């Protein structure tokens, strides 16, 4: 048993007292269930269903609203940057300036990702799901991988354009695009879908390249450090995409979530890590079929230069 495994076992034992339930109030709960099913008002001490949100959640909602403004601004910059990139690469320079402007105008008119629209994108009272405080506020006690820099083009543009603090907001998970039932809609329904599609495909291609490099048997510490840096940038971009309309497609969101976890493991891998730790990450990639799903999501044909 490794040292970490011993510590995990001790933590597991100590955690048995964490929120240990008292005796189950079987009969009392059964009475309440029967009352609810027969139409009588159930004795629910705390409303935890589709009831109206309490006042504290309203304050929380207004507290979080400015974050959605920054997220919308960041997403708008992503849209602009990707559109400019596509235009410059596919058309002559003289034409690119004119056509990009026209494309952006058309995109803006169709896109819902504007600061004002994001702030107003509210499914309505009683169905709004504010993120848990520990995620949105990122308190000091939150332990998470928050890369300070990003090598990816998507992240660099966002950090260059967005105000300070927006990167931490953008890299946190916010449920702003779920409907009342918490079900993600299809990305095909989202305005500006093509732009996010292109950005996502490019990102997935980069991720595939990283994971392929990680899978190489012959690596040295220098290469591991480079891979970790590369993974850091991709991790940041993955989180941005998850919070963008690209993350609305359920299957794609699941892939991005699994990719996020694998990238986080690679980032945390120390240069002196044992081979067993690398094997654990390889196992995560294989168990989640991440490579297969990445390759399936990337269309055939050249993706570089997009």
């Amino acid at each position, binding site marked *: 048993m490794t040292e970490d495994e011993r510590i995990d076992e001790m933590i597991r034992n100590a955690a048995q007292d*964490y929120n240990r339930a008292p005796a189950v109030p079987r009969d009392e709960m059964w009475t309440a*269930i029967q009352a609810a099913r027969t139409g009588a008002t*159930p004795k629910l*001490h705390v409303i935890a269903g589709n009831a109206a949100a309490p006042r504290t959640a309203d304050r929380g909602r207004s507290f979080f609203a400015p974050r959605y403004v920054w997220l919308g601004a960041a997403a708008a910059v992503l849209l602009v940057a990707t559109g400019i990139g596509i235009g410059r690469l596919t058309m002559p320079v003289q034409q690119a300036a004119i056509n990009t402007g026209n494309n952006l105008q058309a995109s803006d008119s169709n896109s819902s990702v504007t600061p004002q629209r994001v702030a107003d994108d509210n499914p309505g009272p009683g169905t709004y799901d504010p993120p848990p405080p520990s995620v949105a506020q990122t308190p*000091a006690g939150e332990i998470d991988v928050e890369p300070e820099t990003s090598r990816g083009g998507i992240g660099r543009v966002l950090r260059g354009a967005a105000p300070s603090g927006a990167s931490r907001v953008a890299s946190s998970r916010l449920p702003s695009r779920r409907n009342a039932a918490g079900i993600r809609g299809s990305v095909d329904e989202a305005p500006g879908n093509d732009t996010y599609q292109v950005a996502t495909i490019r990102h997935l291609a980069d991720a595939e390249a990283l994971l392929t490099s990680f899978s190489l048997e012959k690596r040295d510490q220098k290469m591991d450090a480079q891979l970790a840096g590369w993974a850091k940038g991709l991790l940041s971009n993955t989180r941005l995409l998850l919070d963008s309309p690209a993350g609305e497609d359920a299957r794609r969101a699941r892939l991005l979530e699994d990719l996020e976890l694998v990238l*986080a493991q690679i980032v945390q891998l120390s240069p002196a890590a044992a081979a067993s730790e690398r094997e654990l990450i390889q196992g995560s990639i294989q168990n989640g079929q991440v490579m297969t799903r990445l390759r399936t999501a990337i269309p055939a044909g050249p993706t570089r230069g997009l």
Partner: protein
Amino acid sequence: MSEGAMMALTIPETRGWMSERQLVERVVAGDPVAQREMYDSHVDRVYRLTYRLAGDEELARDFTQLTFIRAFERIRDFRHESSLATWLHTIGVSISLNGLRKVKTARTREAPIEAASAIGSMDRHAEPDLKVRLRNAIDSLSEKYRTVFLMHDVEGFTHEEIGAALGIPAGTSKTRLFQGRAKLREALADFRGEWVS
């Protein structure tokens, strides 16, 4: 009605023999005995799980009650693609996590992780502080890591059961558990020397 089902209804000792399919059929048919049987068979584990997630007795009761209310409403949709227990836990986890997001439960505790004083002592009297530190560390985990950690390491669910409940592959459950454990080890690094010795 089959002879076995008739016996199950009229002879209390045979209720336990009722297969899950027969039980569900009787619940769908509106048999109150079968409904209570289904409730009694699963309420303990559902309540323990919701309590682990909520940490509050009233919330745990509400979540448990809502779980069974919804289960009885949707029992006709149950296709036996998983066990009845897994299906109930899926509902319970969904209700609990959605409910916790809506309700602002105070998760501040007495000892934040960063405020821990130098804990290098091998004194076993430091153990109560470990409980507090561990509680804070688990509370500070993000929802996806905390949920998997509690379901697997504390409540003993398999990764397949967790995957079914959360709608994720079992591999993702394993990865999240790996990450969650790593974060807890990091948060409790002060105690490493004491544990390893």
